[in-house]
């Protein structure tokens, strides 16, 4: 029965879809709406399920496309691309920045500095703990593309963390 299959095979991936949408749009309420929209779309396409080889990959692709569309329309509404894609200088010192309790939000902001594909590959690997093959299927990339994007993403994050770490040390030395 369709509903039974839906409950057993599709609903369990809703959390993954939600986190993936959240990674792209950066807003929990919007990510929830996107997830719901995708899951309803999947249900409405139930007559085509037999023709879909990898249901999870198909759902992830739809989530990615819809999230990017929402993000684009948000850009058009706000005209503030920097706010979404780049870390705005808050004026806080490296010490204040690193010592803030909101380290999670801070890393999220660093992640927003990455190109979309790099951030998506890093998310699927580090958060969803997918193998390279799974990431290839989800994002329609080749193995070298997956590895290159992951390498570049992690290197960039490392560079940003090191930069902040050095700033922090310098700040501590001056304070002494």
């Amino acid at each position, binding site marked *: 029965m369709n*509903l039974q299959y*839906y*409950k057993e095979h599709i*609903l369990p991936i*809703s*959390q993954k879809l*939600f*986190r993936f949408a*959240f*990674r792209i749009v950066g807003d*929990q309420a919007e990510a*929830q709406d996107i*997830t*719901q929209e995708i*899951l*309803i779309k999947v*249900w*409405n396409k139930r007559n085509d399920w037999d023709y879909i080889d990898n249901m999870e990959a198909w759902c992830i692709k739809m989530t990615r496309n819809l999230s990017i569309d929402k993000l684009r329309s948000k850009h058009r509404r706000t005209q503030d691309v920097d706010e979404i894609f780049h870390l705005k200088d808050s004026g806080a010192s490296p010490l204040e920045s*690193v010592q803030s309790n909101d*380290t*999670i939000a*801070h*890393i*999220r902001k660093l992640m927003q500095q990455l190109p979309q594909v790099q951030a998506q590959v890093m*998310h699927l*690997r*580090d*958060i969803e*703990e997918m*193998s390279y093959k799974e990431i290839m299927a989800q994002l329609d990339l080749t193995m070298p593309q997956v*590895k290159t994007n*992951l*390498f570049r993403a*992690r*290197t960039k*994050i*490392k560079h940003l*963390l*090191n930069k*902040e*770490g050095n700033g*922090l040390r310098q700040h501590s030395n001056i304070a002494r």
Partner: protein
Amino acid sequence: MDYDNIPILLDKYFEGASSLAEEAQLKAFFAQDDISEDLAIYRPLFQWQAKEQEVQLPAAFEANLLSTIEQQQSPGIFKRLLLHPMSRAAAVVFLAVGMWWAYQTDSTTVVADSNTINWAAYEPKTPEEALSITREAMIMISKELNKGTSRVAKEVVKVRQLGRID
């Protein structure tokens, strides 16, 4: 757990060469409180990963979604009537009654109409008039036959142009 190899694993991680098991080891290491200063700068990254894995949809999400789907799935009154097992039998009975009624109405009308026609008014009065009517009828039939023949000839020409008949 052996954490001596953490710097090596960390290098592999940033090069994108670590396995999922090695990455799990790094996550476990950075979940500890006591970490050396040179490695502590990477802690937020692994804390972020652990926190992101905890991001969940609200508990009521699934129930709300299923209720939306069930609402969409439940058919309206008309559709429900159509899907009823007796609907086919009812349709057959309805059609039969309809056809019987139509037949009754039509035959009654034809009989009634034909009774009111004064057929004597259409009878030819003289042999010349009968001949003229017959001639007109024959000319009309001849025209229609000619039309049909020329239409067929045109179609044959078209088909020949398509190369289907040599």
